[in-house]
């Protein structure tokens, strides 16, 4: 598989950081980096990772089926992850998640029809002091009220329509 120069460079740096004879320790970050570009862990991605790390497809399968942040189907352009673990739940995380479902018209692990948003109910993302917490791709948003959520969605829509490329 061909990746962008940026991703390829990232993969090369990753491989170089692995101890000799232990290529397989690059497995999880490599899957994440590739998923960032491709959008999902497709069968072609698995083949590619196997040949780069000299592991079997089953070994990749073990990892992909274990980690919920590795996806088989592409998420939206903006992947919204709402924490409903104890700390966030106590301050309205569950309500925020329900609000997000209604607002976007999708459920857990759903993707909006325009492919712009996807939603996921997640376990603790380590932002307990500032719950309810929301993660959009790699960015964190804290103390997210339903109103703040709506503003964020509008903001993201505007950002997107202002861009030429998705």
């Amino acid at each position, binding site marked *: 598989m061909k990746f962008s120069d940026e991703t390829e460079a990232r993969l090369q740096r990753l491989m170089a950081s692995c101890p000799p004879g232990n290529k397989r320790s690059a497995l999880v970050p490599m899957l994440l980096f590739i998923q960032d570009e491709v959008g999902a862990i497709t069968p072609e991605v698995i083949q590619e990772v196997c040949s780069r790390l000299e592991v*079997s*497809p*089953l*070994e990749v*399968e*073990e990892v992909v*089926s*274990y980690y919920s942040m590795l996806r088989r189907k592409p998420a939206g352009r903006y992947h919204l992850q709402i924490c409903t673990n104890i700390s966030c739940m106590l301050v309205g995380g569950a309500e925020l998640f329900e609000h997000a479902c209604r607002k976007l018209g999708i459920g857990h692990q759903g993707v909006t029809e325009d492919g712009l948003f996807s939603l996921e109910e997640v376990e603790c993302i380590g932002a307990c002091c500032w719950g309810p917490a929301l993660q959009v791709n790699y960015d964190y948003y804290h103390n997210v009220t339903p109103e703040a959520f709506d503003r964020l969605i509008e903001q993201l829509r505007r950002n997107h329509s202002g861009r030429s490329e998705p």
Partner: protein
Amino acid sequence: MPELIRLTIDGRDVEVEPGTLVIEAARRVGVKIPSFCYYEGLSLAGACRMCLVEVEKMPKLQTACTLVATPGMVVRTETPQVIEARRAMVEFLLTNHPLDCPVCDKGGECELQDMAFRYGAAESRYVETKYHVPEARWSPVVYYDRPRCILCYRCVRVCAEGMGVGALGVINRGGRSEIAPNYGDHLECDECGACIDICPVGALTSGMYRYHTRPWEMNHVGTVCAFCSNGCKTTLGVYHNEIIRGNNRDRSGRNGEFLCIKGRYAADFPHHPDRLRTPLVRRDGELRAASWAEALALVESRLRDALTRGAPIGIIGSNHTTNEENYYLQKLARQGLKTPHLDHQRTGDVAALMAALAGRQGALATMNDLYEARAILVAGADLAQQHPLLSWQIRANWRHHQARVYVVTEGPVREDRYAARSLRVEPGRELEGVLALGEELRKEAELVIVFGDSIQGEAVARLVAFGDSLGIPVKYVCLVDYANSRGASDMGLLPDLGPGYQPVETPGMTLREMLECGDLAVLWVVGANPLAGRSGRPPAFLLVQDLFLTETARVADVVLPAASAYEKEGTVTSVCGEVQRLRRAVSVEGTKTDLEIFGLLARRLGLDAGPRSWEAVLREIAATVPGYDLPVEALIAGAPLQVRPPAGAAMSRRGAIRSARNTLFTSGTLGRYARMLGQVREAPGALYRG
């Protein structure tokens, strides 16, 4: 020797080598700490939490399987706290377990049952609906029943580490975790069944045995596998005179827990519908059923006729019959029938090795040497396919002792993955490849050289001279194909060598010459199929003793139904020259052992009273065959003992030597009658695919 570590386990003092795990230290003093995931020889998992023990000055319970013994440690394995923890673990393991013990194959020999019996609570607090996944058929050999699985990872590890295959993994997480095969919905692997045998519960079951009977309904007979030359011990499960499974779960014998698909699942051939159960005599051009008396009388008259006319009699022996049968056959031929024409299908040049070693002691590697030698050289064989136990031993040696492995083969083999050096050579040029490694091999502390049929005749002498020139201790294994190929050679089923490779005065015809000879009066073929792949038949009166109507038997004049290795007592000699005991597991009506058939003919011909018993023949072998002067009582009791290179051994200068190049899924003619071998999708397989 490093200083021993002293610790106390359940009040008993124990001294162990540094690095010993507490679970192993406990076993030394007879304390069995329960465990599912811990398995000697495999990597540690620490997954099942059954081996929790209390250690003084440690705040929490510790897993004895990952805890290394340290000086002064005080371990208690059966305190109320430990028992409570184990009770909780058993309860946890049983949350989604179906408790279908009454119909489970493992019922009665299940480690989870044993644990539940020892520690389990009388009632379960779990009232939720159990998570169920339907059972899956991964191959004709392997079936997986997820709900029974306790995720101990033993199967995953034995496949990846022990077998070097890595066909199993664990997918998903938490309560949804399950073992997965390498091709999504099916397995492509060695189909050895190691995963099934090692499973502590009934999660992995075999297509051969599943739902046939309960374990305690069987008789268990420990014998030697009837297929390749590696001489694995297999314990046959016999139910109503039928072999319904093979395994080596007690880890006894040279092979420990190892068996390949042949040892575990090919043991059904004695019950094949095509099995011969009555003598056949050719009348009006057709083979027709006859009585033993009738068939033997006809053979007797033909042999008598040949003897009185002085017409040549040719005898082709077997790679599958016992040492006693082979020895008695060559004696009957040479001393009784006065014929020098004796041979068998030769698959490795053992004679040349014995001649080159010239009685030197300690130069033949044992199966254990392959596990312990510091360095091993494999030349001209795909061990994982052709000699899977050797491959297993070398792999274990590399894992446990970092053995240095050298490979000289025509194509990729499994050993390449951990070899210190792999050399690819043109077929037939293996010796040159070996000689080219001289500089590297000289640096090793010791070496075992394993060589196949491509190094034969004078090349073996050159190989041994090369070994001598290295200046280090070198041992050898000359590879041969079948269960008693080695014994057939050792017992002198050769045209120019008698028992113990002693030259005979008048060399006879080779196998090929016998088949092509126009003057033979009688050609007697015992447990061999020399006419497979050939057209026509020799003009001689053709007598065949075999299990099935093979290509050779089909054109015979008389066919005598013989008993297989699983239906007789005796000894066979493995590829490493280790003599092991066969034990009868079943009897097939209408057949006779080859030894009995020889005896009946000898008596009819007035040559000999026939062998009194197989033990009597073994005693004669021990007394007369050079290299076989072993303690007979120990052999009879079942101890594997290695033969010695005989003094005065000579090379065979007549006849061809060629390995049949069987894979894991083929085994000459016999392999065709083992149904499981043909059913798996990997069959027939190929050599040198890595």
